[in-house]
């Protein structure tokens, strides 16, 4: 357990650098907007799930309210640009700060809640923000939504093509993964693991419970808001139902879970599985049956593989390893006979 983060760092450098180089080169080879668009969507959800994982996985607080932070990021960046002409690059930072503060507050409030109570508290928080987004019409225009002007230019993070968003998405994912790796290697990471395993014991050992939980919640919220700002500039239209709605919160958590919560790369891997699968199902079966299968898969995955895709891969690896060992043994015994 102790040297796992160190291992992960080594793995991520070994696998990650060539992978990152390949990913950066993608738009030069993939000019097809469909695939590139799908890729960008995967990157965004991967970043969201990775950000969620900091509070949901590392700190162990299963949040169903992250759409609130996503919405705060999207609306802050959009409104600052529409009202004051402030570039969304800065809007993104402002949204992150605002969401971070909100995340810290929620982290402090829900500090003592565990299990289902924590889940429901975050859910209620998400709904409160959603109701505000719908009804505070002077600010958000409610359900009519906000349209970012077409062709706002690169200076304003509004590109006519799709490829720049690939790089932005890649940067976003790199940021969330980087922060996750940094946390896991820092004292905060160790404290969070200790807290998640046994809160009382950790407290007895002098772990600053309040500070840790609040920090994890704030960091997670800020990163989620960055993804929100990214979404706003990419789709160039935001409304409450596509940013702050409960379904968004579910999707974020779901992707992290499918990938494997608590791990560094699991949530991102989850996006790589869930997002394309969802698109393929929807395109081939139509909405209703596709979502039926989606629900069914969710049930099967959490029941059969609660450690997610990462867990499955690890199991597969160890099976192959032990299989190889067994084969070696049988060969040897046959040789004796």
């Amino acid at each position, binding site marked *: 357990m102790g040297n796992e983060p160190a291992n992960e760092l080594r793995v991520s450098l070994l696998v990650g650098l060539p992978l990152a180089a390949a990913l950066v080169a993608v738009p030069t080879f993939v000019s097809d907007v469909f695939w590139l668009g799908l890729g960008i969507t995967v990157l965004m959800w991967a970043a969201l799930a990775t950000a969620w994982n900091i509070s949901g996985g590392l700190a162990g607080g299963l949040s169903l309210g992250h759409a609130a932070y996503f919405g705060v990021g999207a609306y802050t960046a959009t409104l600052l640009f529409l009202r004051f002409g402030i570039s969304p690059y800065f809007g993104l930072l402002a949204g992150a700060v605002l969401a971070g503060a909100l995340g810290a507050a929620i982290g402090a409030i829900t500090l003592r809640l565990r299990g289902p109570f924590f889940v429901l508290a975050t859910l209620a928080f998400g709904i409160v923000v959603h109701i505000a987004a719908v009804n505070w019409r002077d600010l958000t225009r409610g359900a009519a939504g906000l349209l970012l002007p077409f062709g706002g230019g690169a200076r304003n993070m509004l590109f*006519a093509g*799709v490829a720049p968003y690939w790089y932005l998405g890649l940067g976003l994912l790199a940021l969330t993964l980087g922060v996750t790796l940094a946390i896991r290697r820092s004292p905060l990471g160790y404290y969070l693991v200790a807290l998640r395993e046994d809160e009382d014991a950790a407290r007895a050992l002098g772990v600053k419970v309040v500070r840790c939980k609040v920090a994890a919640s704030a960091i997670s919220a800020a990163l989620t808001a960055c993804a929100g700002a990214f979404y706003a500039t990419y789709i160039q239209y935001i409304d409450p139902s596509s940013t702050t709605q409960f379904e968004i919160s579910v999707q974020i958590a779901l992707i992290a879970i499918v990938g494997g919560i608590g791990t560094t790369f699991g949530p991102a891997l989850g996006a790589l599985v869930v997002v394309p699968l969802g698109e393929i199902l929807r395109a081939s079966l139509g909405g209703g049956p596709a979502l039926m299968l989606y629900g069914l898969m969710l049930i099967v995955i959490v029941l059969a593989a609660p450690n997610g895709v990462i867990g499955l891969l690890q199991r597969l690896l160890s099976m192959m390893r032990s299989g190889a060992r067994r084969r070696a043994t049988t060969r040897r015994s046959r040789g004796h006979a």
Partner: protein
Amino acid sequence: MSRRNSTASTRRQFRVATLVLTLAASLMVGQLAMAAEPAVTSLRLGALFPQSGDLAFGAADALQGVQIAVELFNETNEHGITVELVTADAPNPAGGAAGVRQLVTANRADVIIGTYASAIASAAAPAAERLGIPYVESTAFAEGITRNTGNVIRTTISSGALGAAAMDFVLTGLAERLEVAEADMRVALVYTDDEFGVSIADAALARLNESPATLVLQESYPAATTRDLSSVLLRLGQTEPHAVVHIAQVPDATLLWRQAQQLDVYMPAVVGAGGGYGQAQFAAALGPNVNGIFNVVPPTSGSINTEALSPEAQELLRELRERVAERGWNQGNYTDWAFMGAWVFLDEILPRANSLSVDDLMAAAAEVEVDALDSITGFGFEFIPAGEPNSGQNLRAIPVVQQWQEGTLDVVYPEELAVSEFINVPLPTWGERTEQIGD
């Protein structure tokens, strides 16, 4: 003198030559048009509608309308253009943008037709614009769709026109029937807090603010999660409005009326604006209580006097009805609007277009003029040219006021389009209704 003469004769010769040339050119152009040899011979049309989620119900009719239009167009094959239809699901705005990309790149669609829901269109149309793809909006009302984009041809009405028309009717035609002066009118506005409700309500409010009439109540509620409107109704009862403008879907429109009966809240006149108020399911749920409720919409075949349509339009309508019935589908308002929108695009705009580019299609659309009587919906088509504000909007999509009468929607206003007289103005009180049922 001679010089002047020669100049004059040259001028005359030149004039003659020009005339001959012009004549020849116009003949050739005429022949080209006659030959019906369009520049475009095939099209992949991408249909983008919500097929899952909250909006799937109403959107099904719209998609079916497009499907039948394409099928009919291919069978008649008058222009030698073959159309292939590909579809994508767009349950929400991000799904709309993704759907556009899927249609354009995976399915190689040349043009997209959509969308039923305005929020989805608001994300999908700009996504198509970025790919340089023209977008035909057959069914979504939001003002911004045509105002903020350059690639949209909207065959149907805009929410601004709809909301304004609803309020305009309340303040003029209805006030007159209720025998209340416009300045004395007390109007309540109740609407869902989704895009559909808000955009129409905003336009209605703007119209009301120009008038001396009083807004006595403005209430919005969440469309998807409302299961109780009793508090809205009690407030309504307190304010004693002459007319209520209610913008709703089927579940909440039904709920408002059932609870109004339970609570004995009297509303002298109620005007809906599409959505739930135009649906057969709403009428079925209310039974005889539906009679007298108004609905402001762009007209449809179900609401106008179809006998007055041109023979071609009647034939078109017969085809649509047969095909809908064959499949056991429901022919709702959205079926008509989507069918006619798709038909005008295929049959009128497409043959005039030099290519499938946004510019050429917009230019072709600007040439189109379809008379109201040549359309099964009873409203004509004439599009604002590119470069002008709100380009691509159909100028002739003007709403009419329908009223539920014996389970069907009949146009009652404006008078020149009316097929029936007004009934139940003002509506009977709940006490009077129970007596009627008791008989």
